[in-house]
């Protein structure tokens, strides 16, 4: 019964959506409204106005930087939500789950990760540093850092990883992105422009673009560190559970 009703509902939705799709302008046509309205300005003047060769980064950090500020806040809201659901401290990672996962902290995996880690770090740093001019950016680099920390904590054990990156350290590092946005935005306000303006009218043209480059890098690194830390924290929070050595857990 439920299945039939759902099928009818989804079928109706699919029909309606496909009908809508058929009405849309053809994909990839240069005459589409999307290609005529706002975007020509981004294409023509994006590099000089926003200071980044990568126009996606120009939109993310500059034209629509406010969105990105809220987006990184959403990531910390999710972490706060996970802490709210699962709790934060007085919990330990139960070894049995790692054993069940079949992960052995062997010499081979340790060495592999040891060799892999510098590559991951270089990749992330490169992605973040050149994210303004090449594909990549704070988010991608940060997620790569997070993946690297995940791999190394699998290889070396979550206990050690957690000792190195304690809860408090993670909470402090987690605030980097929003603080960076707040500081950069406030510098813009002090410079006599609107929040999140990077080209301050009060400065000379040369120092304007230097300051803009510095601000963009601060934001990229803030986002990168924060995203990496949050990925790691979420993983730790999901791995941790109360020490159930005396209580047999229902399996």
């Amino acid at each position, binding site marked *: 019964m439920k299945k039939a009703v759902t099928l009818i509902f989804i079928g109706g939705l699919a029909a309606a959506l496909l009908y809508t799709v058929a009405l849309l302008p053809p994909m990839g046509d240069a005459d589409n409204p999307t290609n005529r309205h706002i975007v020509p300005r981004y294409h023509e003047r994006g590099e000089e106005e926003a200071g980044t060769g990568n126009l996606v980064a120009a939109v993310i950090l500059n034209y629509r930087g406010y969105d990105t*500020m*809220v987006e990184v806040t959403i990531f910390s809201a*999710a972490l706060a939500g996970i802490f709210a659901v699962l709790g934060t401290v007085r919990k330990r990672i139960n070894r049995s789950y790692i054993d069940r996962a079949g992960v052995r902290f062997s010499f081979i995996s340790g060495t592999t990760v040891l060799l892999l880690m510098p590559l991951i770090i270089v990749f992330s740093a490169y992605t973040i540093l050149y994210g303004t001019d090449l594909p990549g950016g704070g988010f991608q680099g940060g997620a790569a850092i997070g993946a690297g920390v995940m791999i190394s904590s699998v290889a070396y054990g979550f206990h050690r990883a957690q000792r190195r990156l304690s809860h408090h350290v993670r909470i402090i590092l987690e605030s980097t992105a929003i603080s960076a946005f707040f500081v950069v935005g406030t510098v813009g306000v002090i410079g006599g422009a609107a929040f999140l303006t990077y080209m301050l009218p009060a400065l000379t043209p040369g120092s304007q673009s230097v300051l803009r480059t510095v601000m963009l890098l601060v934001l990229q690194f803030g986002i990168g560190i924060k995203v990496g830390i949050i990925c790691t924290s979420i993983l730790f929070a999901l791995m941790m559970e109360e020490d159930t050595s005396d209580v047999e857990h229902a399996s």
Partner: protein
Amino acid sequence: MSQHLAIYAIVTPLLAAVLVPIVSIWRKNWAMPMTGLVLTVSLVFSTLLVPQVRASGYLSYHLGSWEPPFGIELRVDFLGVFMMVLISAICLIVAVYSRKYIAPDTAKDGKTFFFYAEEMQEEKRPVYYSLLLLICAAMLGFVATGDIFNMFVFFELMAICSYALVAIPGTRLPIRAAIKYMLMAVPAAMLALLAISLLYSVTGSLNMADLAGLAGSSDYSRVITISYVLLIVGFAVKAAVFPLHIWLPDAHSKAPSPVSALLSGLIVKMGIVGIIRVTYSVYGSHFPSPLSWVTSVLMWAAAVAIIYGAIMAIRQNDLKLMIAYSTIMNLGYITLGFGLADVTALVGGVYQIMGHGVAKACLFLCAGSIISRSGYQKIEDLKGAYRKMPLTCIAFALASLSVVGIPPTAGFIGKWYLVTGSLNSGYPFLGALVLAGSIMAAVYCFRVVYYMFFLPPSGESWQNVSGEAPPSMAGATLVLAIASMALGIASSWILPPLRDAMGVLLAGG
């Protein structure tokens, strides 16, 4: 400096939300004072915006100094600033109330026991305040923005915080309520994103004022209509419009009481504010008259919601569940004000947003005081509550007056305008329905009030309850109760600008 007030009202709580957990590593007791301070700053900034907005009609702030269609614009009209003041005020009161609620004093005589005391462990307290600040910032940003994608981003921030706040006790029922909530709200948010993408694909813009012009003259009028329907469905789930309300009773009754107050008082209203914003600021020019078939569907859904909510509220025996169903009913009123698409009814609906927000927050906070002090959740256990907890009971009674709509309260003004509006637009039946709803509200509200004030406690109950809730909790409920009276008395100051603003909105501005 004054033009930066709006952005700092939004950004300050965002920053404080990540700083609160850091500070509370070393200073555990600073979380609440910090939260209170930051929310006061937001309240002051939003209040200072009011004269500016009244002087110029709306306030436009270009983030990053990019002119509107290229960057993001904050566009605060009178509805926006009205909601900003309401949001920051209620969040501040809820934060003050939460201090003793989540961290109760240890009982000296063993007589007090707190219902949620076990669930809200010490480690979760900074997280709670952090989420409170985030949700406040999200709501402020949501009502202030003039960009439809930015609106979606704030909407998601608000949604994620509300799932987390519902689940924060970590026990069985709140977790299940949060899962049920997410299972409806996440697909709805995706429908909204799909609608925004469709709209973008045929107009090429994201700025609301810009979209209003483009949508009116677009060649793809059917696509725009479909995207409107999808967007309305997306917001309607959040606003718990009748057939999509299923998540609401569980989420509102199983969450901790201050969170229920926030959810019921503010967050569900954001869905309706979103519907009003997109309808009049974006799609208004697309439809020949504001009264399209979509609004009439919403109108009839609202009518059903009023009856359904009232009947279910009367049938409940659980105090918080009753208040939750009453919320469904009152959301019906607000949606009705929107659906009638008449200036008077819209003013009534918006006034009802405020009146009901304050009164319902008060009711939930009172319920929280009573439950945490006595542990009683059933309505029949409330007999004789007045003898032990007089202030809380008085606040409950005053807020009930507003929910029912007795003359000097804010609830009365809202309903009065709704009735007038429905008569104006030729639906006397709906006007009668509003009045009938009031009578049914009187049945379920005054039953509780009668139990509290006029019946003696049955048997041994209330013997072990040591007395009134702590001053901060009782004070918070009383402030809200008095505010719901004062807003009714002071309506002559609020209504004229609200009426002007709604007139401009309906005219497609």
